[in-house]
């Protein structure tokens, strides 16, 4: 190639580029705003309309639980027991709204585990709980997370093998009263720390970390959203249903909320919260809105929404009249099909979503030139 040839080919390339540039500009001129998405606004929505209200709501339910626990332990009778049971049910449902934002103040930090591990571990070790009640010696900061939190409280106040009066009778034991009150207090403290951190400083840190790299708020929110979704599917459904390799049968003792018979209500609520996070509330300001602005997003929204409908159908096919732990021993099929539909939706919430939005999931991922 001589110099003139080089020059002419350079000219050709430049003109091709120019034409492409102009063509691309023209095609997209009316919709320039369409291609940008205000991630900070999305984060503000999540912080102000979802995360902080969820923590506050849960905290006030726990405060209600505390007053009911105090009333019950002051004067154990069947009415005060039913009151605390009702309050616990409201609190555990409320907690579902708050259980998926496990970063920052609710994330792991040194010895502290993520908030759900700290306050909602199941199955509960009833022997540990009874030991602590028996001895009156316990430490709520140790590794015995299966002896505290929502489900240890549940174990103390629900027991279908005992009549209401028998259950009330058990609370003549002072140690049982004080363990119950200590667990509720501990629950309140943990929630309050997280809520206060959000309302004081973390909110601005969260909304201003508006990038898409690993460690950005969008990436953390997405990661925990997926983790919560998969956790619900794998641990609240998969394990009790015996769907893990190596499991040979249904294992009802692995159900969440074993004693209150409230497992299905919790699962249902958990999924509704997942859907709501994906949609971003009534005005759809969350991941769904983000998807609407990116290449291939509309197709994924359609796929996701049709799968969400199938999940709703599967949820509707399950009755909450019989507790999950009993129902899955008789007829596990509706629960298994719920698990299947949730499984089919994983890719929509997980790999497809993150790929289209272009968020980095992990540090050190990616190859480069």
């Amino acid at each position, binding site marked *: 190639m001589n110099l003139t040839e080089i020059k002419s080919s350079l000219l050709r390339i430049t003109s091709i580029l120019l034409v492409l540039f102009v063509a691309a500009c023209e095609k997209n001129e009316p919709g320039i705003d369409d*291609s940008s998405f205000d991630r900070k606004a999305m984060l503000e929505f999540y912080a102000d309309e979802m995360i902080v209200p969820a923590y506050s709501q849960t905290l006030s339910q726990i405060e209600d639980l505390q007053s009911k626990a105090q009333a019950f332990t002051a004067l154990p009778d069947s009415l005060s027991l039913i009151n605390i049971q009702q309050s616990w049910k409201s609190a555990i449902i409320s907690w579902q709204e708050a259980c998926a934002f496990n970063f920052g103040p609710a994330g792991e930090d040194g010895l502290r585990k993520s908030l759900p591990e700290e306050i909602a571990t199941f199955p509960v070790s009833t022997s540990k709980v009874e030991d602590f009640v028996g001895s009156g010696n316990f430490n709520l900061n140790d590794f015995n997370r299966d002896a505290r939190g929502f489900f240890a409280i549940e174990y103390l106040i629900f027991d279908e093998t005992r009549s209401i009066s028998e259950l009330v009778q058990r609370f003549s034991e002072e140690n049982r009263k004080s363990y119950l009150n200590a667990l509720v207090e501990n629950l309140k403290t943990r929630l309050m720390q997280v809520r206060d951190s959000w309302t004081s400083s973390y909110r601005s840190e969260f909304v201003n970390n508006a*990038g*898409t790299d690993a460690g950005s708020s969008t990436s953390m929110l997405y990661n925990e959203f997926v983790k919560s979704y998969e956790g619900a599917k794998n641990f609240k459904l998969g394990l009790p249903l015996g769907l893990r*390799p190596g499991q040979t049968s249904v294992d009802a003792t692995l159900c969440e909320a074993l004693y209150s018979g409230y497992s299905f209500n919790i699962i249902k609520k958990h999924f509704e919260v997942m859907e709501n996070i994906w949609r971003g509330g009534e005005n759809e300001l969350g991941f769904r809105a983000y998807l609407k602005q990116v290449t291939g997003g509309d197709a994924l929204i359609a796929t996701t929404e049709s799968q969400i409908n199938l999940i709703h159908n599967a949820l509707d096919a399950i009755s909450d009249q019989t507790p999950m732990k009993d129902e899955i021993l008789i007829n596990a099929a509706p629960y298994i099909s719920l698990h299947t539909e949730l499984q089919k939706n994983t890719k929509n919430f997980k790999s497809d979503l993150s790929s289209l939005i272009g968020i980095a*999931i992990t540090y050190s991922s990616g*190859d480069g030139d």
Partner: protein
Amino acid sequence: MGIDVKSFIRNSFNKLAQPVNAAPFVSFRIVFGFLMAFSALRFVLLGWIEDHYTEPLFHFHYYGFDWIHAVSASWLYMIHILMILASIGIMTGYLFRVSSILLFLCFTYTELIDLTYYLNHYYFVSLICFWLMFIPTVDKHQKIPAWSIFIIKFQLTLVYLYAGLAKINYDWLIEALPLKIWLPAHDDLFLIGPLLTLPATAYVFSWFGMLYDCSIAFLLMYKPTRPFAYITVIVFHALTGFLFQIGVFPLVMIGATIIFFSDTWHENILKRIKALPLIKEVFVFSSSRDVKTKSIFSFALFKTFFVAYLLFQILFPWRYLLYPGNLFWTEEGYRFSWRVMLMEKAGDATFYVKDSKTGREGIVDNREFLNAHQEKQMSFQPDMILQFAHFLGEHYQRKGVNQPEVRAEVYVTLNARPSKLLIDPNKNLMLEKDTWKHKSWILAD
């Protein structure tokens, strides 16, 4: 034919054996050693020894390297300290030969532990370290045989050129994908952020990237274009470094490409470096002896190997042509071919393990065995899917599952297209082996 092949080869060998000014190699070596020390230190400080090597329960091995295992954390720390010391040896020229052998062995070993972390630039670094073991010591006349510099330039040229050729495809040039996905995600970048959301920007970046990669090595070789080309190198790599999570790669390329500069340019630079305090006391710039620079290249065996290496490097990246199907989808022949930042791909892989006696089938929770990075990489690469399937089969056999059958439902999205099944979801992967042959259980794109 006008070309006499025999005399062409003989002339080439003679040229490659000729002693030339060592200055470009010496400054390359200093920069390369520095960057390697920095990179190894960064790796340790980021806690990646634990994250990458010691915490995962399972490692994906490279084909043919399943005998490589992760040693304990304390040994890995030792190896990284050795790597840093060896890099400093390369930089200063002190114990150069020992350093180069240590660096090659340590670096290549750590890279081979887990396929998850494969990066083209790690492969590049391994290759350069390999040649450093053979490149002769600079003699007292500041000379080095020409092949020493040639091989580095050759490798760099190939990296760029093949990266550029790989970009000549429909998605990259006509659809501006994946940049149309990647760029808007960085709309918060200082100054240029808002521009990145425009589709036109993705087109400009795509075309510029392709033209840049295809031509930059040649523009660096040609003296009149060199200064301009090097400025482009800095701008291009700085930009990609800011935009994407690619670690030290931009620095490595900005550093390595200085080898294209002239002897005088390098002599000037080295003069300035030597004028710095302490440098003369610490650095070894050349041997005091009259090293026989021709020695190793005069062996026929070495010459044969040298030519075989060049041919391998030129041909191996084209092996994908021997496989059916779309390379980006099947990834058969994708690695070790300088295909960098070329596609946006993600998958979701669900593994089912069936007891062949009872017929009971269980669903695996991948995160029980893999970290997020491993799961992400495995979920769209067939050979890794196969490895993980075999691991699961063996794991659950030990747990009492009878002759486990393992199948996987893998949905993959490529460049924002709706996700589709990557492999036959009914195939018992325990019966499949990883070979060089086409994997018939990969479904068509």
